[in-house]
């Protein structure tokens, strides 16, 4: 169906790929939905990897003085577990949601820069592969002057400095192999991908909204996307500089973090956390956006206090830049700094509380359907509160002197990251599954998944509070039997395997339902936002006719009016309206021009690892040539792309006609 409507452009001398067919179709696509789906699957693969790493960690810790993993293996596992979960799972899976949903929710046919979007994705993929290739090519060793009893196995040859890579431990003297180069350059590449998409999303939100969609009529998910994009925009440059500094320290001979030459290792911590704390809100806000969509839908009520929720989200983002030093309370920063950051950290509880209370206000008095997405969203609220409150206990600075670097912290951030972000994201995966696949998932398996997750999650991370307060220190591959921590650690390990079972249930549900689930109607949840006016799965052109919006939750108000009591009454014309949406949605009245596929984004991404390897191996014969090859690939692709029009020629001539064109996308340049 998409072909008839979208591919009307004439061929040019360039033989351009056609995104509708097979393998190359995926490689070359510039369709935000396909890119979103690829983001999702890629991120999920990394989730499995990060999860397997976690399981190895847990097996090692299941009893005191265990010998399942060696020290180097354990260090690589927790570093890559944290790095993977954050940079290769939660961020990209959030990007998957942004990509797929943002244009649909604001009534656009694509993002502002469709090919830039593909570039982001391919840079991310190649960045991830590059990072993981450390397990194949990377080398580790003892610190200079130290000794190993045996050389590290392949499993132990991943980056091993912790996800925050504290200097000077991550410097050349104390991490003499190449693995920390893989880490710093890999993260640099991944950051570039996120920076590009953040610009893309900001411009999309500001320029591509459907007629009538004023800023305060945007769905909360879109708002949270916007806040996240700004957080990325302002925090990524900081980590970029910090990573450059560590890379140069390691490879060029700068001295920023080398205390033996007057460098300052605490500077790294400031720069890292100046990025790292906004980063944790980058991880949670998308999930908060999802929850803000799911709760109203399944309560059949509008979001309570929409402006307050939006404002609180923005406030969280804003304040998130002012609390970074709470990760450094034990570092010996001055008491004034400690007090200031303790107070600012506490203050973040206020806007977060506003969100929590408004969510409860939303379900209060509703008509609550406990479908799988709703269960996950409710689980989110409950579990996030636990994690948030333990966060507040960290902000009590003297108490944090006891807590920091223990499993009490590990408990905190898994409650907010797993109980928060992951529960929210799974809620979204179930919620939009019908829109994505055109079929319904199995509700029974979905609920089973939730309960297995819920039990496993609390068994895994609940006891960690206790372990931490009892003296279990983070990032230790063994602990002494006398500490008496063995039994609880065993419980945690069992919990982790229960979580794994939950993940398996999810995978079964997903793959089975995608093929065999009942066909989904296009508005299965009687939902409120624009994407549900589209056929399932969404056609390539999204909107057959550009929508016009007149209110917040426009779709809902088209279906329902209110009686004198303020209770919704289905409009008599609603059924006909839905039928019309379906009819029009599948048969666009006029041809629609869409961005054409292109090889160049893929090539840009492919050039990145070449540059990375070139930098790491610049002392070998092939290092510099490879680096140059990579640079030429990237620059060449951009030039090729600059010459290749976004859409087939003549497309821009339609731009004056109503219902056709994205202003500004027509000539997307370099």
């Amino acid at each position, binding site marked *: 169906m998409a072909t008839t409507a979208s591919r009307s452009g004439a061929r040019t001398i360039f033989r351009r790929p056609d995104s509708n067919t097979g393998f190359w179709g995926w490689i070359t696509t510039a369709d935000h939905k396909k890119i979103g789906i690829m983001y999702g699957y890629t991120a999920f693969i990394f989730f499995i990897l990060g999860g397997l790493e976690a399981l190895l960690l847990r097996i090692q810790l299941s009893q005191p003085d265990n010998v399942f993993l060696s020290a180097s293996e354990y260090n690589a596992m927790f570093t890559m577990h944290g790095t993977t979960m954050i940079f290769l799972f939660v961020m990209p899976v959030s990007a998957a949601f942004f990509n797929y949903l943002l244009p649909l929710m604001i009534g656009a046919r694509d993002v502002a820069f469709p090919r830039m979007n593909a570039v982001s994705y391919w840079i991310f993929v190649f960045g991830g592969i590059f990072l993981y290739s450390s397990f194949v090519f990377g080398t580790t060793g003892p610190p200079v002057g130290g000794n190993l009893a045996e050389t590290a196995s392949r499993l132990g040859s991943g980056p091993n400095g912790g996800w925050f890579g504290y200097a000077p431990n991550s410097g050349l003297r104390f991490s003499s192999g190449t693995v920390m180069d893989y880490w710093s350059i890999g993260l640099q590449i991944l950051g570039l991908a996120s920076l590009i998409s953040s610009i893309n999303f900001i411009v999309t939100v500001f320029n591509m909204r459907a007629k009538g969609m004023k800023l305060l009529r945007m769905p909360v998910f879109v708002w949270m996307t916007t806040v996240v994009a700004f957080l990325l925009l302002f925090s990524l440059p900081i980590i970029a500089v910090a990573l450059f500094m560590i890379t140069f320290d390691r490879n060029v001979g700068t001295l920023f973090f080398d*205390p033996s030459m007057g460098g300052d290792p605490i500077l790294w911590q400031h720069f890292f956390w100046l990025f790292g704390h906004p980063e944790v809100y980058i991880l949670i806000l998308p999930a908060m956006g999802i929850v803000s969509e799911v709760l109203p839908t399944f309560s059949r009520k509008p979001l309570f206090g929409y402006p307050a929720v939006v404002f609180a989200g923005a406030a969280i983002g804003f304040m998130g830049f002012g609390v970074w030093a709470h990760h450094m309370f034990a570092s010996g920063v001055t008491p004034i700094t400690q007090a200031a950051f303790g107070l600012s950290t506490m203050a973040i509880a206020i806007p977060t509380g506003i969100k929590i209370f408004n969510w409860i206000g939303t379900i*209060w008095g509703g008509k609550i359907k406990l479908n799988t997405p709703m269960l996950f969203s409710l689980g989110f609220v409950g579990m996030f509160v636990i994690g948030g409150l333990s966060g507040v206990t960290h902000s009590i600075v003297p108490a944090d002197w006891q807590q920091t670097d223990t499993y009490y912290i590990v408990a905190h951030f898994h409650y907010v990251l797993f109980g928060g972000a992951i529960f929210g994201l799974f809620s979204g995966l179930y919620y939009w599954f019908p829109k994505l696949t055109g079929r319904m998932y199995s509700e029974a398996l979905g609920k089973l998944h939730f309960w297995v997750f819920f039990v496993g999650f609390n068994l895994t991370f609940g006891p960690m509070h206790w372990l931490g307060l009892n003296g279990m220190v983070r990032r230790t591959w063994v602990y002494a039997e006398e500490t008496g921590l063995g039994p609880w650690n065993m419980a945690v390990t069992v919990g982790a395997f229960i979580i794994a079972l939950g993940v398996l249930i999810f995978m079964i549900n997903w793959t089975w339902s995608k093929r065999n689930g009942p066909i989904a109607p296009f508005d299965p949840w009687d939902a409120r936002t624009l994407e549900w006016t589209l056929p399932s799965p969404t056609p390539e052109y999204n909107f057959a006719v550009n929508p016009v919006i007149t209110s917040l939750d426009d779709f809902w108000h088209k279906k329902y009016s209110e009686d004198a009591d303020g209770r919704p009454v289905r409009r008599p014309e609603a059924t006909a309206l839905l039928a019309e949406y379906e009819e029009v949605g599948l048969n666009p009245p006029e041809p629609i021009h869409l961005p054409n596929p292109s090889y160049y984004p893929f090539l840009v991404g492919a050039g990145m690892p070449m540059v990375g390897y070139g930098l790491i191996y610049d002392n070998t014969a092939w290092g510099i040539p490879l680096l140059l090859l990579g640079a030429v690939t990237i620059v060449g692709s951009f030039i090729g792309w600059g010459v290749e029009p976004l859409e087939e020629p003549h497309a821009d001539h339609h731009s004056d006609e109503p219902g056709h064109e994205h202003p500004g996308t027509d000539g997307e340049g370099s």
Partner: protein
Amino acid sequence: MTRRSWIGIALASSLFTACASGGPMDSLDPQGPIATDIDGLFRLTLNIATVIFVLVTGALLYATIRFRDRGDRTPEPKQVEGNARFEVIWTVIPVLILASIAVPTVDRIFKYTSCADDALHIEVTGHQWWFEYNYPDDGFSTANVLVIPTDAEICLDMTSDDVIHNYWVPKLNGKRYLVPGQATVLLLRADEPGEYWGQCAEFCGLSHAKMRARVIAMDPDDYADWLSSQQRPASMPADGTIEQEGMNLFLGGQCVSCHNISGVTASNPALATGSIYGPDLTHFSSRDVFAGATLNHDDPGAIESWIDNPPLIKPGSFMPNIDLTQQEIEALAAYLRSLD
């Protein structure tokens, strides 16, 4: 809320604090005034947090159950879009709660980040992966086991020789980094004589897990005895004993390039140049644990297996495997045991 439910909440929060495990690293079982004070602050916060948690999840569960969709029996809900009064209430109440815990927090920060004038100063240097202690007033150096008098404020002047470490003795105080090239301080104070466990808490490379510590608090009298015992030079083995053989091996081999034994080794060259060096062994066997407080002196064969292959016990260790013969190991171990 009734009085009884308040008690219930207090009990619930105590569930995980009150029944302290009694483990040696239990931060919920403070043994000194500083740790106790911090613990009180933590428990206060925890109780408040528990109340908030019970209220919030209570409301969540109540709403979920009460307003469940029961088919046609449940009417369509009123479309409430918000309520300004509620917004104000649930903004202001958290502000007040937070303000009330902010005050003691700030107070304690300033109280515990600088040392009193009359504090006893001990220098701590972090090494991958052991702690070195210097008693500047008494002119000796020891490792792994920190000995302090009870009822006195101890001021640890800390720095690191290589990467960032983090000194933590949960029962006496929270943590503080040891930063290369910078100075930090940590206060310790113990009420009762006893042995307290510690551990380096910041990831510091391969053997971070095996960078542990002990603090032994002594009555002031015992402490004075201990001080004078540490100031003597090392005991000399009698002629012809296996200990003397060990001493000769020590002096003739590589050991002496990294370790100091006062009265036996000449001044340690490595110490002067600041290159890698190991713990001072003058009174080695007066310390019940060694090798980053991971090995116990009393365990048979512990010393032997350490000098046989240190990197096997502590991956990455700066003390190499010197390929000693069994005989040499035994002689060295015997000598080390005699260093009381």
